């Protein structure tokens, strides 16, 4: 009996490694600490009723953001570990097995569990406020999406201490990721972690498309909608059409591993190349899914801090939409070297390059928004201005990669690594940081400390260039990605050391940001106004943080940058349009709101249980988990009592309190 337990636990827990032991201990300690704190302050109930069951888009947004910052930390630590190993491979800091696991989890976590939730967090916080709605179209589904993401991410992360991490690369090419290549459970954690959170992402995509198309405030025609909302629309349309492909692809890989199917296996007529083909049909749109909202954020910020209308609104919209459209026609550029022949390569090379055109137009429009503007540079604007040079150089190297015959030399080299970090960090991370700094006061009612923010900014920027510029050179030196060690004759070491220094500068930058948040909370200075930056769009017209119901009265919109125009009219002493005044002066009414629900949490937890069962092939656990899922669905279907009304006097009280601070 005892032996059996021992044998089981040695397979179940990852053992025998100080690194992982340390992690296990710290995870256990953190858990104990959290449980203790919550119990000590009697906060369990509060946590459940105020947060875990909340369907309020603002709270869900905040939870997304917290989770994503934790994931940024985890992915960042992975990155630093890799960089240490690459600076001094002779030290054997990480063995091959660890190194492989770490770049795999780094890639997955950064893109799927850091960038995506950070993006969803911003969607949630901003979109309803920006279009003048009280919530998203389907608040219950929204909460479900969050918890699916959260439990999916947890399932993925748990593999670090239980069972072993996946180590077949962030897109897990078969046959390496098949049972024949990865017999451990790590790959199953990968499949189920991503699958579960992917379903959540898909639901979010649908939710926001409906929200944006159907819930805009009266008068806000599509062509009057703020650019961020446009970018969310284009990103969500892309999610809707791309994520099902991911779902199927992972499902097929799962069938291969679990039921012995032969989609991508070596034998039985399976074709691993079909997986490459499918995964990139999702993977390429995915990178645009994460960059498009960043484009939207930049558009908002540039206009705000140039105090000038966004230049070329129509072009911007058209560019966004055409990028999401074309993103579906370029996937093969990730495997030009597969030997699909000149026709295929030429076609996909050209479609890829085409994307440079609308992207370029966006860049020019931002520049000309600043041109003849009156620029000020608080932190959100700093990130925006730093983004432009970084991103266009990264975009340019992307175009170089898209030249198919040249890509035969670039493919899988550090040139590629440098390209995508430049667009991902310079574009996505900088963009989301900009958004976070910009909308932070809207979320919490206070601004982040500017001085510390500037330190973080400079460390990130300088660190970025120091880290990734040498990697282009390493690419030309023939260094391939995913090497845990290399031959010293190649002369790669000096540049690798430089690169590692850069990575640590970014690590320091991150610490500055943590400090910045802590400092700003400690010396809390609540803002008196809801309009922190002299903003242009509707979200700035209500108090910060926004009341539960967002808008006491749904506003009527008459122009682009409606709030800005209104302020201008006031300055000029002009009157608003009659319908605007009518809407503002209409008597308050009870506000119809969705009720909180525990079902999303429980249902996602059930998915987690089922996923865990699938990973270990424990039938009873699969049964329990799936049973839970079905029970939750039926329970929801039979629930008719899903909403309530906030009475007028409560709205009045809340408004008075919020406005009273003026």
């Amino acid at each position, binding site marked *: 009996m005892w032996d059996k337990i021992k044998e089981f636990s040695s397979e179940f827990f990852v053992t025998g490694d100080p690194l992982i032991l340390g992690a296990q201990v710290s995870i256990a300690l953190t858990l104990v600490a959290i449980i203790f704190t919550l119990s000590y302050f009697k906060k369990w109930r509060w946590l459940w009723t105020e947060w875990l069951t909340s369907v309020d888009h603002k709270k869900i947004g905040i939870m997304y953001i917290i989770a994503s910052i934790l994931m940024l930390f985890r992915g960042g630590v992975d990155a630093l570990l890799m960089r240490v190993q690459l600076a001094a491979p002779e030290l054997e800091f990480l063995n091959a097995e660890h190194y492989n696991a770490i770049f795999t989890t780094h890639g997955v976590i950064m893109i799927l569990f850091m960038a995506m939730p950070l993006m969803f967090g911003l969607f949630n916080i901003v979109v309803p406020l920006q279009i003048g709605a009280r919530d998203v179209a389907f608040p219950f589904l929204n909460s479900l999406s969050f918890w699916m993401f959260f439990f999916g991410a947890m399932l993925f992360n748990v593999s670090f201490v239980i069972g072993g991490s996946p180590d077949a690369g962030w897109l897990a090419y078969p046959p390496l990721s098949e049972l024949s290549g990865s017999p451990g459970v790590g790959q199953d954690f990968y499949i189920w972690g991503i699958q579960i959170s992917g379903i959540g992402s898909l639901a979010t995509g649908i939710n926001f498309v409906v929200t944006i*198309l159907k819930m805009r405030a009266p008068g806000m025609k599509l062509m009057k909608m703020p650019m961020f909302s446009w970018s969310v629309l284009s990103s969500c*349309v892309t999610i809707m*059409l791309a994520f099902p*492909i991911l779902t199927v692809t992972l499902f097929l890989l799962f069938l291969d591993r679990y039921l012995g199917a032969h989609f991508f296996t070596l034998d039985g*007529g*399976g*074709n691993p*190349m*079909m997986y490459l*083909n*499918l995964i990139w*049909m999702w993977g390429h749109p995915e990178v645009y899914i994460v960059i498009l909202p960043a484009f939207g954020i930049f558009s908002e910020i540039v206009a705000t801090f140039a105090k000038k209308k966004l230049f070329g609104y129509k072009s911007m919209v058209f560019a966004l939409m055409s990028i999401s*459209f074309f993103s*579906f*026609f370029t*996937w*093969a550029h990730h495997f030009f070297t*597969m*030997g*699909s*022949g000149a026709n*295929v390569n030429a076609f996909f090379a050209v479609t890829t390059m085409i994307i440079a055109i609308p992207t370029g137009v966006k860049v020019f429009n931002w520049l000309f928004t600043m041109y003849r503007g009156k620029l000020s540079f608080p932190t959100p604007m700093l990130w925006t201005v730093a983004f432009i040079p970084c991103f266009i150089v990264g975009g340019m190297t992307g175009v170089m990669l898209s030249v198919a015959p040249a890509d035969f030399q670039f493919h899988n080299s550090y040139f590629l690594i440098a390209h995508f970090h430049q667009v991902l960090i310079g574009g996505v991370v900088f963009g989301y940081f900009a958004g976070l700094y910009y909308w932070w006061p809207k979320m919490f009612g206070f601004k982040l400390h500017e001085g510390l923010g500037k330190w973080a900014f400079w460390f990130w920027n300088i660190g970025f260039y120091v880290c990734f510029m040498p990697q282009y050179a390493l690419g030309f030196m023939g260094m391939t990605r995913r090497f845990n060690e290399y031959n010293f004759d190649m002369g790669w070491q000096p540049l690798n050391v430089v690169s590692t220094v850069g990575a640590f500068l970014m690590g320091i930058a991150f610490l500055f940001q943590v400090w910045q948040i802590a400092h700003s909370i400690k010396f809390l200075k609540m803002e008196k106004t809801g309009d922190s930056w002299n903003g242009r769009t509707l979200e700035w017209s209500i108090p910060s943080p926004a009341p539960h119901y967002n808008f006491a009265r749904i506003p009527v919109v008459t122009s682009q940058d409606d709030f800005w125009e209104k302020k201008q009219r006031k300055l000029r002493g002009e009157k608003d349009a009659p319908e605007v005044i009518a809407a503002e002066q209409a008597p308050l009414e009870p506000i119809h709101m969705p009720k909180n629900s525990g079902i999303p949490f429980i249902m996602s937890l059930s998915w987690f249980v089922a996923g865990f069962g699938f990973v270990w092939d424990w039938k009873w656990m699969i049964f329990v988990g799936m049973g839970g899922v079905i029970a939750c669905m039926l329970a929801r279907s039979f629930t008719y009592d899903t909403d309530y009304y906030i009475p007028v006097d409560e709205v009045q009280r809340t408004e008075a309190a919020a406005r009273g601070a003026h």
Partner: protein
Amino acid sequence: MANPNAHGAQHGHDSHGGGHSGSLKSYVIGFVLSIVLTVIPLVVVMNDMFSKQVNTLIILVMAILQFAVQLLFFMHIRDEEKPRFNLIALIFGLVIMLTIVAGSIWIMTYNAVAT
């Protein structure tokens, strides 16, 4: 919800996605058409009427027509109000779906495994 039905009556146009409208006639026409469009390819294939290519072409065309019948007579895609988000979304989805299928076939012809 004070009086849902009153509202329902007042705004008869809420059938954005779907099958509110339509008459028995349109359903019957649709049904008959769909039967016919299923029988034709069956006859063609079972009797090996034409060459393989022609057969394939015929049955694919029939399938597409069948799809159109379902859309028009059963799902009432015509009845949607402007702006026709449903239709736009459908078209966009179909374009991407076709890209997936055709693109895969095209790319993978050069990378078939030895069978």
